[in-house]
């Protein structure tokens, strides 16, 4: 009898839950004309209600931890970029601009002196000094931290605190990318006592940035609130930023249409869906990413440069751009057009022009007159998968039968790092300094050179690029390196695509740019 009672009770409970929910679901109609819905919203009574300065941003992925020194995921950087600062920053013309350092000088090739802003406060209220700068780089270089940016800063020999607001870095040898590397959040300035108290910075955060962390509900939202003591006068304008994880594209768009969020990012394919919608603005910006087709150079068929060049001639890069990005991408090399003067003109190169005859000839010369069978590994992003499909189709023309291997995230990364592939489509960020674009990916010891590529002259140029401080000379060095890599074709490069912010018309003063796509410092909600 008791069991029966429990059964009945549980059914009643479940029923009541359902009924109450049903009753609730009728509410939506009432809200039709009140799109921004939140308990913090102003009451109807005030005649001219002040719009809450809260930016609601529907993001595509959950952050993977908030430690700027150990996390490289874009979903995390987006958030801790608002929390932490670096010594210096870079503008869209790739000039260095002050951030925590108000000025700097370089007495010789290996010495850098930074003069810090005074009165900059961490979110815990303590003033930031040269001591924190020293601690932050020590933390990065400590193997126990397992920080990512070790290679960015391991040329630092000593750090000397000249006074509270002055710090002198002495390098082991001249290292031209040093300034560029300082703009990376891998070198964010963190407060010592906070790190020690929390052991790490994965779920807690305390920086000097315009916003401080208030709440992180996993797989749902991160809430940042205004740092009242932010060093830039009058910034930020917003009282809070709320990041909502919405992995589904159509859900993001629906939430934007109904005004539940102010800002989302979507690929070019979604552009027609908001055309003519007066409530939504589209804000395009050029990314610094490029897509590539990589070869496993330890395999016989790809050892021969003729085969790689043949494949380059077989590709129609514009068709890839038209099909995958709806035309909204630029033909690119591994130094992207966004990097301005550093990039050579790839589009005009012979290797970038489809030439099936020449491709067949080269293949025949290499001993594959009838082509061969191979595989193309793809994964991670839809555009990578789609590029793989177009390439596969284009290669049929020269007799190469490529089978697509669509890999799960873990498998894909594994295949990338362990040469578990024949050909592979991927996407890289070119970085803020050509040293990154060239040496990191294509020098023999470059840690992202997973292809087995080695060209002594390229290595030599990478060495020169690191120690050449004169900008014009550096440019010449990297131009030569680019020409060589292009000719050797260890990777074939496709395009650098556009990204799109879709924003509500209520969100004002937001202009995304390549190197600072999420600068919300001037944003207001009307």
């Amino acid at each position, binding site marked *: 009898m008791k069991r029966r009672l429990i059964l009945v009770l549980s059914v009643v409970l479940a*029923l009541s839950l359902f009924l109450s929910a049903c009753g*609730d679901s009728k509410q939506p109609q009432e809200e039709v004309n009140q799109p921004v819905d939140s308990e913090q919203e102003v009451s109807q009574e005030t005649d001219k209600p002040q719009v809450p300065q809260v930016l609601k941003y529907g993001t595509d992925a959950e952050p993977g931890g908030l430690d700027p020194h150990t996390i*490289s995921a874009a979903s995390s950087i987006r958030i801790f970029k608002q929390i932490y600062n670096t010594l210096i920053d870079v503008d869209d013309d790739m000039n260095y601009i002050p951030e925590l350092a108000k000025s700097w000088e370089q007495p010789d090739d290996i010495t850098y002196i930074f003069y810090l802003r005074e009165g900059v406060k961490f979110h815990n209220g303590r003033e930031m000094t040269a001591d924190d700068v020293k601690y932050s780089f020590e933390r990065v270089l400590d193997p126990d931290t397992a920080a990512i940016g070790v290679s960015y800063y391991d040329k630092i020999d000593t750090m000397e605190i000249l006074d509270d607001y002055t710090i002198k870095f002495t390098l082991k040898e001249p290292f031209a990318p040093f300034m560029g590397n300082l703009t990376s959040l891998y070198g964010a300035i963190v407060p010592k006592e906070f790190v020690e108290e929390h052991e790490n910075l994965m779920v807690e955060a305390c920086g000097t940035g315009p916003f401080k962390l208030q709440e992180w509900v*996993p797989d749902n939202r991160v809430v940042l609130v205004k740092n009242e003591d932010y060093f830039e006068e009058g910034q930020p304008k917003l009282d809070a930023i709320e990041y909502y994880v919405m992995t589904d594209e159509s859900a993001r768009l*629906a939430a934007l249409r109904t005004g*539940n969020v102010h800002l989302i990012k979507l690929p070019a394919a979604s552009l027609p869906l908001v055309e003519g919608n007066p409530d939504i603005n589209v804000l395009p910006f050029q990314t610094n990413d490029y897509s590539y087709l990589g070869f496993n150079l330890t395999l016989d068929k790809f050892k021969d440069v003729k085969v790689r060049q043949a494949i380059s001639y077989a590709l129609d890069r514009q068709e890839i751009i038209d099909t995958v990005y709806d035309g909204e991408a630029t033909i690119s090399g591994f130094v992207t057009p966004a990097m301005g003067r550093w990039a050579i003109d790839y589009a005009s190169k012979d290797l970038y022009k489809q030439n099936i005859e020449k491709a067949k000839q080269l293949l025949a010369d290499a001993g594959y007159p009838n082509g061969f069978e191979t595989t193309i590994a793809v994964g991670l992003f839809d555009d990578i998968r789609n590029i793989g499909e177009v390439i596969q189709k284009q290669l049929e023309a020269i007799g190469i039968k490529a089978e697509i291997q669509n890999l799960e995230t873990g498998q894909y990364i594994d295949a990338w790092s362990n040469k578990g592939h024949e050909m592979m489509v991927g996407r890289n960020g070119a970085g803020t300094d050509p040293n990154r674009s060239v040496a990191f990916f294509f020098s023999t010891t470059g840690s992202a050179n997973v292809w087995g590529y080695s060209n002594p002259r390229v290595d030599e140029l990478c060495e020169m690029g690191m120690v050449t401080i004169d900008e014009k000379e550096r440019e010449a060095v990297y131009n030569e390196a680019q020409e060589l890599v292009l000719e050797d074709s260890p990777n074939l490069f496709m395009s650098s695509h556009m990204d799109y912010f879709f924003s509500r018309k209520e969100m004002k003063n937001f202009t995304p740019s390549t190197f600072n796509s999420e600068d919300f410092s001037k944003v207001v909600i009307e």
Partner: protein
Amino acid sequence: MRAYIIRRFLTLIPILIGISLSIFLIMQLIPGDVVSGMLGIEANPELRANLEKKLGLDRPLHEQYLSWIGNAVKGDFGKSFRTDKEIFPEILSRFKITFQLTVMAAVISWIIAIPLGIISALKRNTIIDGIVRFIALLGVSVPNFAFATLSILFLSKVFKYYPPVGYAGLFADPAKNLKIMILPAIILGAIMSGSIMRMTRSSLLEVMRQDFIKTIRAKGASEKVVLFVHALKNALIPIITLIGMQIGSLLGGTVVTEQIFSIPGLGQMVLTGINQRDFPVVQGSILFIAFVYVVINIIVDILYTYIDPRITFKVGR
């Protein structure tokens, strides 16, 4: 009966040991590891070694397993490799959300499916039966992502409605919580109802043709009594089996719906854990899901005897 229940619960122990061992081994065997995932493109031997040491991955396998299972027994599932958060409290808080969604979806599906299934069986091979069966097939052949995407599209374009974005707990803010949960629950429930409807129909038909029903009919019982008192009760066993399995699979299988509606449930946690090869998260949450699943099935088995007293379970001597 009591002995049976105790014995069933005792079988939990080997099952959980089996799961923990196999999940541990599988995580080792599948390609990809957390270090590559975390470092991504930045990986180099030095960074790998640093990180492996930091995460304790440089220890021998058996040591890793024993220390994990030893702590797990004490309710300590360790910390996430990625976020360094305590896993067990996280699992519990995620489970509450998924559980609520599952219960709501299940109730909705029963309300839709069982009456329709009965009608369909009674009106066998009529137009009504045809329509009901067709709807049921829609439920099983339309994947939930399609259904969810369509609903979102429809609501946002026609009614300019989208559920509130930030998640709120059932007890923290019931109204907001239900607003968030009702749509995904209806979608999951509607899809679940397809198979329950089919099962109700066919097992009711199966029972109706059996001798004892004929006997009862012959004895002059009214059709209502035949149906609701005798037939339905006997038809329930396969239905309950199916419901038990569906609830079990929903616990880990609401991922797509959770993702589309940004509900921070257990399914998302497991999937993210698998993608990132976050071993402790995957191991802990699967162990937990397995535990809940097995318990649900024990309850289902016990329900059999409750519904059909003729069924007795042999108790091992």
